[in-house]
């Protein structure tokens, strides 16, 4: 097991290996998403309270889940990079940030679109989830701004790793304090479709969508990490061979 991980950590092996792995993420991911969309939109029964508006859940929940997954991935790989000084894990952290930001933005927009028919406003401060997604988006922007402000890549890696770890410690606290803050706001207790146990026809498409999106996210991440690794190792010989080899075909 360790030999495999060690092999994966060395950039040239990772570069070739990831090229083979990406299709294994893309194909099942797309199939699951297509199944989830069709099943979720047309075959799942409408929600007894919100009617068909609840179907936005099939997009909102995966996006919110991915925004959390991306940050956790970023913090874990930043920690590994800082402690064991593995360059590849800094590349993973650098690659995960923009993707995480995009999905957080997506979760925010779909959440507010979903809120429009129910609460009548595009933005409902009473809903703790929307507010913590917004703060999460600021965390991502802070991370990317710090990384952009430092020119030297290794220094940028280490500094942003510290920020990612400090942010990771604070995320549960932010979620807790926003929940507490919105509970003071007695009025708007929102009943969500996933309040009572969801019937299986509703649940399966949701699980398919979450898994499908995670796989697509994995493929996008690997794609980004490949170019990050190429960029970081641009001086090394294996990169020269890769570039020259692709030069002939291209």
């Amino acid at each position, binding site marked *: 097991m360790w030999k495999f991980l060690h092999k994966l950590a060395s950039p040239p092996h990772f570069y070739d290996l990831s090229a083979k792995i990406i299709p294994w993420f893309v194909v099942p991911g797309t199939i699951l998403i297509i199944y989830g969309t069709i099943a979720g*939109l*047309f075959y799942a029964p409408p929600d007894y309270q919100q*009617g*068909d*508006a609840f179907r936005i859940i099939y997009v909102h929940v995966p996006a919110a889940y991915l925004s959390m997954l991306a940050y956790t991935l970023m913090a874990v790989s930043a920690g590994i990079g800082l402690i064991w000084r593995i360059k590849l894990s800094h590349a993973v952290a650098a690659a995960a940030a923009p993707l995480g930001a995009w999905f957080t933005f997506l979760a925010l927009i*779909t959440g507010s679109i979903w809120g429009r028919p129910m609460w009548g406003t595009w933005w409902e401060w009473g809903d703790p989830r929307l507010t913590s997604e917004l703060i999460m988006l600021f965390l991502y922007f802070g991370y990317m701004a710090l990384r952009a402000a430092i020119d030297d890549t290794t220094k940028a890696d280490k500094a942003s790793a510290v920020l990612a770890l400090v942010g990771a410690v604070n995320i549960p606290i932010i979620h807790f304090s926003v929940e507490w803050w919105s509970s003071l706001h007695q009025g708007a207790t929102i009943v969500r479709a996933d309040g009572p146990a969801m019937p299986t026809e509703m649940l399966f498409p949701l699980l398919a969508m979450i898994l499908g999106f995670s796989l697509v996210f994995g493929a996008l991440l690997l794609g980004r990490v*490949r*170019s990050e690794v190429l960029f970081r190792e641009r001086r090394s010989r294996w*990169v*020269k061979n890769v570039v020259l080899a692709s030069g002939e075909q291209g």
Partner: protein
Amino acid sequence: MMEALAMGGYGGYVWSSFGLTLIVVIICVVQVKRRHQQVFSDIKTRLRAMETDQ
């Protein structure tokens, strides 16, 4: 078929959310590809520059 698309009156919201998701995923894919090409071309110019001054 038409009333299925109407989504019980919430069609506008549901389809816009799904449409937006598709757009975001496409943007991410395009970004990944463009970043990869950009790194490739940077390295190529670097290699060409190195060859000339040897």
